[in-house]
Each structure stands twice: as structure tokens, then as C-alpha cells.
């Protein structure tokens, strides 16, 4: 082992967890070895890894295009690329990151892998459908990549009409087909989760014994089911519009381009919660494990997930305050958007209360989780700024918006994704990564992220519009700062890719429960057996049954 210097890391701190792998059949990774056994597997754990590999590839594409965008913005006069190339770069960045990384990121990988384990099931309810969803995903990805290879798309990820239907001369239709198809993959995943969580729970695993991770994925799946079909039909109309000029969104025939925005945001605002809720689930697992303390306010946190998933359907119009929506609608959407603060506050304050008087280990997953809480709070509250009508009139479509949603999507989802990846990597692969490297990259990412995106809040308030390739020279300093930060961020991203992959072959073998965490997934071997549970799983009487608990009874705990 090369990691001799850090064997005192937390990984092996707990000596009592028995390695339950001994004496049993092969784990899911070694059950079969052929290529066929991967590409035609119906094992939810293997499908999760197929997804993990695919979305990592898309993350790389998205990150490279982001890097090129930041490179272009180092100079104000747009001399690095042509305007056209720049527009294609940010469009690819947006489309790939939103639909091919962020939306499937946590649900399709961790959700797929962990939900059956957490609820004590042998698999998801529809294993073949699960595999089919990956193939659907890859088909959508194929069409999107075709549009990129043919020459790209320049509409922005929002595909606003009539630019996307009547004016853009790029490969819009293949990109639209790709996004439409990938929606079905989301729907199938969501359907599978909803049915699994309802019907496949182990005996005794009642709703209020489920980990919050399962609750948030249930809420996410509802959004998948209820929101995705609306954008599917909006994109179908858009494709028909572009191919046959049906005119529904085309003002030249009396159609209304704002109607497309309504249909688009009916999905795309809830889609933010498709990205955020699973991240909240991950954080709700990590924080109690590393505080060794029961999650504070369990029921409130669980209800808050469902609350967020419902309220999010009433707020989409806050994307359209200055887009020709009626004033009355704007006011209604504005006040409803403020209501989102309620369940979000529940989450954040309960995590903080969980840390209080815990017994904290500041390992890599916990570092990510603490970073997540800070960045999510900033992202969420700047969201309230944007929901304020008068402020929105100023900062709509400026870099303020860009900074805000990157705080939610990178500071939130990506940090939760990385935190979860480190937390469950021993479970996925049966190996420990090198802790010191993990901590270094967590700190690098946190610093790099803030240097990249905080200046963008200022740029936005100064009035720099988003999607600007050529910009006034007075904004150059902050743009250079932002680009410099993105290089730190890039280094922070590259490290985990190296040491996590390295750990698969050379890492120290992981015990079943390296973090002394609670939850059924930690009662099986690392990596888990092919059929998950060798004996009937025993549902815990209480979720998050950690040594330290704050209780109504006033009983003392050590």
C-alpha cells in the first residue's frame, strides 16, 4: 500500500464492524466478468456504475466547454473565439451539464445503487426498465453528440423561440431530439423509484424509518414523473415548429413565444429541485454519520422534501418577470417563490442543529457536506433576491443569475455528488481512497468555486449581461478573477478522478462500514453481494440510530 502515512485516517477507525463478506459468494463486481454481463445486466448496482461512467464522461465535456468559455472571457473584446463559436460553447455546456450530468447525477447513480439497499430490497421493482432507461439515456446522448459533431447548436440551453425555431442556422433538431429522449430516461428512473419505494420496502421498514436519502429521492421521482412530460411535449412542438413551421410559438403566424417559456419552465424550474433534492438527501446521510448523532428534526426534514417538490411547481413564472408576462402573474409567482424559503430553511437549520454537540470527524465527505451547506445557503438566498420583483428587473439575465444558479448547481449538487461519491466509494468498490488527497481536493474545490463564482454576483449587479462574448472593458478584472478561480476548480476536479480510480485497484480494502454509519446499506459487505442481502434485512426501529441523540425524553447520552 502506498498510503502508509495516512492509515490512521478515519477509514479503519471502527474495529468492531465485522467484515461480513468472509465466507459468502462473490460480490456484485466479481459475480461475472464478461462485457455482456455489464451491458445487459439488470443488477441495479451495475446499472448505477454504467450511469456513473456515462455522466462522468459528460461532466468532462461540460467542464471542458466551461473552461473554454472562461478562457474566452479573459479578454473583453472576444478575440479568442468567434461569437458563433462562443455561443455554441456555452450552449453545449448548458445542455450537457443540465440534462446529461446534473439531472441524472445523483438519482441515476447513488439512487440506483442505494435505494434498494437502504430499504432492504433485492433490486428495483423493474430491473429491465432500469437497464432500458440507461439505453434511452445513451440514445439521447447520441443525438446530442451528433448535433455537436455536425457543428453544434447556438440557441442556449433554454431553446427560446423564435430564435430556436426560425432564426438559428445550427443543428437544433438533433439536439432537441436528444433532450426529448433523455427525458424519457428520467421518467423511467423516477417511475422505478416511486414504485420501488412504495412496494419493495423490507418488512418493518415503515416510511418514518427510511433514510432521508430515500425521502428526497421519492420527492425527486415525483418531479420526474409530473414535470418531464410537459417539457417533452414542449420540445415535440418545438421540433414540429422547426421542421414543419406549425407556428404555435411563431409570432409571424400569431403564435405566442411566451407560451413556450411557460411550458419550458413548468419543467425546468422543478428540474432545479431534481438537482437539489437528491443532494440534500446525500447531505442528510453524511452529516449524522460524521457527527455520530441522530439527524435533528427527522420528520420535518422528510416533510420538507415533499414540500419542496410540491411548492416548486408554483413558482416557474419567476423566470419571466420581464419577459412579457402579465403583472398580476408576476406578483403571484413572486410571492409563491418566497414560500420555497420555508422548506429550505428547515433543511439547513436541522443540519446545523445535528452538528451541535455531536462528535465530529472532519473527513472528506464531511468537508464536502459543510461546503455544501454554506454554498447552498448563499445560492438559496440569492434566489430570493431574484424572486424580488424590483431586484429581478435589474439583475435578470445578468451574471448575478449565472452566479446564483452555479451556487445551487455546483455549490449544491456537484459538492453533494462529490461528497456522496467519497462517502459511498468504499461501498461501491470495496476500496478506500487516500484520505489526505480527498481533503486537499475538497478544500481546493471550495476555494476555486468561490473565487470563480463570487465575482459574478458583483459583475451581475454591475450590469454585465450573461451570454456576452464581447463585454465592456471595465468588467475585465472581475472576469479574469473568475477565470483564475476556474483553474483552481479544474485542479480540484481532476484530483478525485485520479485517486478514486487509483483506489479501485490499489486502495486499501474497505470494511463493510468504514464510517461507523447507520443504515441498511452499511450492514452488507463492501462491495455488496450480487443480490444485496444474504439474510433477511432487519429494519432499524429508529432511523439514524447514532450514539448521540437529542430527545424529548431528556435521557442522557454519551
Amino acid at each position, binding site marked *: 500500500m502506498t498510503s502508509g502515512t495516512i492509515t490512521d485516517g478515519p477509514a479503519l477507525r471502527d474495529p468492531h464492524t465485522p467484515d461480513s463478506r468472509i465466507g459468502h459468494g462473490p460480490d456484485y463486481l466479481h459475480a461475472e466478468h464478461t462485457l455482456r454481463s455489464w451491458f445487459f445486466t439488470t443488477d441495479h448496482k451495475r446499472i448505477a456504475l454504467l450511469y456513473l461512467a456515462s455522466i462522468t464522461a459528460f461532466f468532462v465535456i461540460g467542464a471542458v466547454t466551461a473552461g473554454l468559455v472562461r478562457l474566452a472571457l479573459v479578454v473583453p473584446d472576444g478575440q479568442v473565439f468567434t461569437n458563433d463559436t462562443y455561443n455554441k460553447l456555452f450552449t453545449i455546456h448548458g445542455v450537457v451539464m443540465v440534462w446529461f450530468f446534473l439531472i441524472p447525477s445523483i438519482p441515476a447513480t447513488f439512487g440506483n445503487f442505494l435505494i434498494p439497499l437502504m430499504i432492504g430490497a433485492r433490486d428495483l421493482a423493474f430491473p429491465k426498465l432500469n437497464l432500458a432507461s440507461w439505453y434511452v439515456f445513451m440514445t439521447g446522448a447520441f443525438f446530442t453528440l451528433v448535433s455537436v459533431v455536425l457543428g453544434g447548436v447556438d440557441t442556449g440551453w433554454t431553446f427560446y423561440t423564435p430564435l430556436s425555431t426560425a432564426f438559428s442556422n445550427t443543428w437544433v433538431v438533433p439536439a432537441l431530439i436528444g433532450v426529448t429522449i433523455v427525458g424519457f430516461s428520467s421518467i423511467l428512473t423516477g417511475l422505478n423509484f416511486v414504485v420501488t419505494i412504495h412496494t419493495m420496502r423490507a418488512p418493518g421498514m415503515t416510511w418514518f424509518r427510511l433514510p432521508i436519502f430515500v425521502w428526497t429521492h421519492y420527492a425527486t421521482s415525483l418531479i420526474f414523473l409530473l414535470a418531464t412530460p410537459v417539457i417533452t411535449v414542449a420540445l415535440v412542438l418545438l421540433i414540429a415548429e422547426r421542421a414543419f413551421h406549425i407556428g404555435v410559438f411563431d409570432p409571424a403566424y400569431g403564435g405566442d413565444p411566451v407560451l413556450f417559456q411557460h411550458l419550458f419552465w413548468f419543467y425546468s424550474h422543478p428540474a432545479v429541485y431534481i438537482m437539489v433534492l437528491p443532494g440534500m438527501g446525500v447531505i442528510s446521510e453524511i452529516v449524522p454519520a460524521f457527527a455520530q448523532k441522530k439527524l435533528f428534526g427527522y420528520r420535518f426534514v422528510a416533510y420538507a422534501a415533499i414540500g419542496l417538490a410540491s411548492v416548486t411547481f408554483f413558482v416557474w413564472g419567476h423566470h419571466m418577470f420581464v419577459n412579457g408576462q402579465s403583472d398580476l402573474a408576476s406578483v403571484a409567482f413572486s410571492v409563491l417563490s418566497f414560500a420555497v424559503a420555508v422548506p429550505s430553511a428547515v433543511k439547513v437549520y436541522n443540519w446545523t442543529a445535528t452538528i451541535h454537540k455531536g462528535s465530529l470527524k472532519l473527513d472528506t465527505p464531511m468537508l464536502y457536506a459543510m461546503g455544501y451547506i454554506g454554498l447552498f445557503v448563499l445560492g438559496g438566498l440569492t434566489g430570493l433576491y431574484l424572486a424580488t420583483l*424590483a431586484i429581478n428587473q435589474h439583475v435578470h439575465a445578468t451574471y448575478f443569475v449565472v452566479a446564483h444558479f452555479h451556487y445551487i448547481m455546483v455549490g449544491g449538487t456537484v459538492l453533494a455528488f462529490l461528497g456522496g461519491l467519497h462517502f459511498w466509494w468504499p461501498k461501491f468498490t470495496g476500496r478506500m481512497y487516500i484520505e489526505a488527497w480527498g481533503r486537499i481536493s475538497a478544500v481546493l474545490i471550495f476555494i476555486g468555486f468561490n473565487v470563480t463564482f463570487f465575482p459574478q454576483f458583483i459583475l451581475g449587479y454591475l450590469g454585465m449581461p450573461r451570454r456576452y462574448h464581447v463585454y465592456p472593458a471595465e468588467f475585465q478584472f472581475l472576469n479574469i478573477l473568475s477565470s483564475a478561480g476556474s483553474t483552481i476548480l479544474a485542479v480540484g476536479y481532476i484530483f478525485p478522478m485520479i485517486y478514486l480510480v487509483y483506489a479501485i485497484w490499489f486502495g486499501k480494502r474497505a470494511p463493510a462500514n468504514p464510517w461507523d454509519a447507520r443504515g441498511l446499506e452499511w450492514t452488507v459487505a463492501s462491495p455488496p453481494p450480487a443480490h444485496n442481502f444474504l439474510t433477511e434485512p432487519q429494519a432499524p426501529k429508529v432511523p439514524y440510530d447514532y450514539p448521540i441523540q437529542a430527545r424529548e425524553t431528556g435521557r442522557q447520552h454519551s
Partner: protein
Amino acid sequence: MNPTDLALRLWPPAASATAVETDWLILAFTVLTLLLTVPVFVAITWFAIRYRQGEPADRSHGTIRSVLIEISWMLIPFLLTLIFFVWGARLFFISKQAPGDAMVIEAIGRQWMWKFQHPTGQSEINDLHLPIGQPIKIRMISQDVIHNLYFPVFRMQMATLPDRYTEMWFKPDRTGTYRLYCSEYCGTDHSRMDGTLTLMTQADYAAWLQNAGAQQGGQAGAGRAIYESYACGTCHDPGAKVRAPSLAGLYGREVRLADGRIVTADEAYLRDKILNPNRQKLAADYKQVMPAFRNVIPTDDLDRLVAYLKSGRATAQQEASP
């Protein structure tokens, strides 16, 4: 002042009372944000140090009335932020109600330029000169895709849509040179669709109008020429061979339609009738013979034509002819 004077600026200039109040709004909101977040950040950091594993610390918990705690941290921040909803909505409504004496600038967005027309007829491309101390209303429309006219100095923007007019108003109170942008992504040269806003005193503005000396006679005067060039009079002038409704004094009048409804001949009606006369609003007692001018008449010409029809001149002109 040149906008590029400062290499690093941290706060944008403001040139209207609304802009200043928006600044106060966001500053106050930031104070609240800090009040809500700093305790969380401090607490997380402090707990992380104080309660690290191995640190000797009191980890005992007494009885906690968690429902009360939960409800208070759900509701208190929410109610506090609602103050800012009300404040923001109030400012928003003020910015939606233009005073009656506002000077009207017509703006047209198209890929990738802005065209502004002053009430006196002068027009400019991408740049805009405006007087201070005078409410200004911008009526705008797009000729192609959706654009968005954005004046950071007024903390104000509004989309220009291809199919209907939108408006915004402000009252500049500070001279200087500032920026204006298109802030809705509109295609290849989106980032080139910006310009300069020059705010000047009333006297300077009057002098500028003199020198700019574009088409004199104003919108309506230009509209008369359009009326001639499209030969509208062939049908609509009194005594014309083809029987068509007289346009004299039409604006603002009530019109009875073929389907029995009564509508007011407002600007939207005029515009609609020119672009698309057969759509839905056939005037009673007339046959449908007028060609549609959609995709025929450019938007700025249409604006002038409508301005001409609105002005009293159409009336005078036509009543003068026998």
C-alpha cells in the same frame, strides 16, 4: 464620464430615484441575508472545532421542544423575507405605471441593433440621448427574435417581443454616459447589441435634437409619407373608387364589427388591422378586400403609419379633400 474610466468598479452608478431605491432594497436584503446566514456559518465552524471527535466537551442533551424550534425557524425567516417581497412588488408597480406626461421613445430591437426614435422624429441606432428631469416611457417591439432592453443605470429592463408592444418608464436625474444592452440572448452577435445611453440636461437635449436633425416633422409627418407610398388612400380616402372605411378620426372611436361586437379603435386595433385585416375584426358593412401587410411593411414604417393615423392630421387632411 467615460464608462471605462475605472478598471475595477464594485457598485454601478444610479441615475433615477427608482434605481437608488432598488439599491437600498438590495442592501437591506443583504443585511437580512447576513443576519440569517452568518450565525449558521459561525455555528458550523464553531461546532466543528468545539465538538470534534476526541475533544472533551459536554455532549449531553436535555429535553428539546423540537416542534417549537422547527416552526420558529420555518416562519421567522419567511416572514422577514416577505417584507422584501412587498417592498419589491411596490417598486415594481411604480415602475409599471408611467406618468401621463412621459415623453415617449419608440424602440425597435432587431438582430443585432437597437433603433430609437424620438417624439420629434429623430432616430438613432444603438445610442440613445435623453433629457434628465423628465419621465420617459419607452415603447418597444422586436422585428425578429425576443430581445431585452436593459439600462443598468436605471436598474431596469424589459423584453421586446416580436408580436406586441412592451413598455418601461423611468425618470433620469443625473447626467452622464452609461451603457445599455440587449440582455436576452438573441443569436450570434448578441453581445454586440449594446450601446451608449447619454443623459443630458433639457437644454443640451434640445440642442442635440436640433443638430441631430434627422427627419423633421416627427413620427406622424413621416407617417404621412408612408401613407402615400403604400397608396392607402386609393381605398381609404373619401371618394375613392373602392369603398373602404374612412380613417378620418378613426383613432379612439368605437367601431362596430361584423359579428356585432363593439371595439375601440386603439393603437393595437389599428396595428392589427393593417398587418392582418382579415383576422377577426371585420368592420360591419364592409367587405373583406384589404391585403394583409404582415411581412410587407417594416415595423418602423408601421409605427409611423399608426402615429399618422393617431394624429389629428389624418382627419384634417381627409376632411379637406372633397
